[in-house]
């Protein structure tokens, strides 16, 4: 066993001190849960606030001579409208391959007051692939800088805004619109903050220097509303929120339309194309895709996990579960998967094969738990 090869985030020591159950994830030794356990951490996030170390994710910066140049360079890899992204705004998109399959999904932020700059956050498991793609595809006048010295801490839940406002009382952080981004000072500490996340709750993602991360995390945990949350609850939260996880709902064979992400392809790009896989994406938009991502509710209490076969009411194989587990806020087992488009109406009866037996289930609308994004 080669322990020396595993990577540590800037908060590793804190996780161990807090008694986290650690396990490898995307090459990093990460906290799966702390002493409360996954169920309690999940419920804590929805009731109050949770702090997540997401420093394993890939942060990077693109710098070009002006916004249009940098934006158009990125648009050669993704189907979103980056040109039209206003300063201080953030957008969700995907890198696509020539067949229209998803290489990764990511957040793109146009920081205010830095013309020509775009900040990217990509999945930990894909960052090597993403950065190689960018290096090869970017024009000479747009430079990629990996931000390996940056930590990323998410604070999610209904109490997140008031906790952060308490820590940055001069900042008006609580008034940030959803999917906006700006620099915020917490006392002497300069950070970049976006109002977004991966839980379905109101929340913020805070990028800060690695050397400051542990002290800042301890400061957050001092606030009574905040508890540390591990990757186990991060997964159950995003599953209930109906959000895709790369390697499960997204991979290089799946296009954004069948994944239910057409909303992230703005109108100009749908019409103009000029992103990889335009033909497949445009066809899926006009004719409808052959299969679609759906939510699935099981009728019993046994969970179904990723890889479980989905069969129709008449017993034919019609798809596969891509994520499945128990939803603590829903109080029942839930799953997501892809099924033939004819079977995607909510209420459609299905069965999921678990330990060789068909378990009755139905297509359910997403999200399983309502989103509570800040719409103030």
């Amino acid at each position, binding site marked *: 066993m080669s322990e020396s090869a595993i990577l540590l985030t800037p908060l590793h020591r804190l996780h161990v001190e807090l008694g986290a159950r650690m396990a490898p994830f995307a090459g990093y030794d990460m906290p*799966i*849960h702390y002493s409360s*356990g*996954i*169920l*309690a951490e*999940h419920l804590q996030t929805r009731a109050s606030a949770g702090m997540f170390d997401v420093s394993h994710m890939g942060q990077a910066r693109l710098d070009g001579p002006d916004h249009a140049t940098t934006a158009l360079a990125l648009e050669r890899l993704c189907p979103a409208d980056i040109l039209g992204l206003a300063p201080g705004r953030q957008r969700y998109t995907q890198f696509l391959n020539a067949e229209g399959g998803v290489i990764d999904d990511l957040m793109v932020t146009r920081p205010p007051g830095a013309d020509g700059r775009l900040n990217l956050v990509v999945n930990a498991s894909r960052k090597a692939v993403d950065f190689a793609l960018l290096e090869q595809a970017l024009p000479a006048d747009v430079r990629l800088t990996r931000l390996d010295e940056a930590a990323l801490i998410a604070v999610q839940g209904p109490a997140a805004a008031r906790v952060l406002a308490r820590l940055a009382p001069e900042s008006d952080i609580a008034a940030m619109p959803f999917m906006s981004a700006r620099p915020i000072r917490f006392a002497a500490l300069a950070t970049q903050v976006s109002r977004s996340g991966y839980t379905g709750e109101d929340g913020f993602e805070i990028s800060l220097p690695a050397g400051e991360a542990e002290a800042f995390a301890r400061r957050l945990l001092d606030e009574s509303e905040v508890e540390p949350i591990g990757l*186990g609850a991060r*997964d*159950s939260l995003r599953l209930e929120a109906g959000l895709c996880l790369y390697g499960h709902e997204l991979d290089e064979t799946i296009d954004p339309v069948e994944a239910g992400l057409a909303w992230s392809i703005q109108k100009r790009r749908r019409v103009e194309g000029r992103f990889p896989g335009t033909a497949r994406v445009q066809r899926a938009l006009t004719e409808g895709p052959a299969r679609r991502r759906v939510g699935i509710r099981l009728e019993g*209490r*046994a*969970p179904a*996990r990723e890889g479980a076969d989905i069969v129709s009411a008449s017993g034919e194989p019609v798809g596969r579960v891509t994520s499945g*587990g*128990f939803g*603590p806020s829903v109080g029942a*087992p839930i799953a997501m998967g892809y099924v033939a488009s004819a079977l995607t109406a909510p209420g459609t009866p299905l069965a999921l094969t678990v*330990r060789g037996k068909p378990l009755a289930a139905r297509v359910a609308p997403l999200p399983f738990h309502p989103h509570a994004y800040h719409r103030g």
Partner: protein
Amino acid sequence: MSEIRFTKDHEYVRIDGDVGTVGISDHAQQQLGDVVFVELPALGAKFDQGAGAAVVESVKAASDVFAPVSGVVVAVNSEVDAEPALINQDALGRGWIMKIKLADPKELETLMNQSDYDAFLTTLA
């Protein structure tokens, strides 16, 4: 005081005459995390020692419960069916899973007693 024996897979069997009450140990429930579902065997099901007899599902994963002894299932715990969290709260007591009528009491000699199991736990990572 009825005898209790443990397997290396962290099942226990508590003996009363020729019937053993089977569950998972407190160590096992801690490792698993919050239990959300238990798949119980059918009454009358026969298992050889070491065969998969039940499944405990936590939030993250499914875990097999192997029969610590050969025999026939004579009871299953409807309480853990209704309230799987009992396994976390009281694994050795109200969180029992099934009762097996022993086919061969000599199999108990292959299992660990309480102090051997406690020692075994200290050897685990």
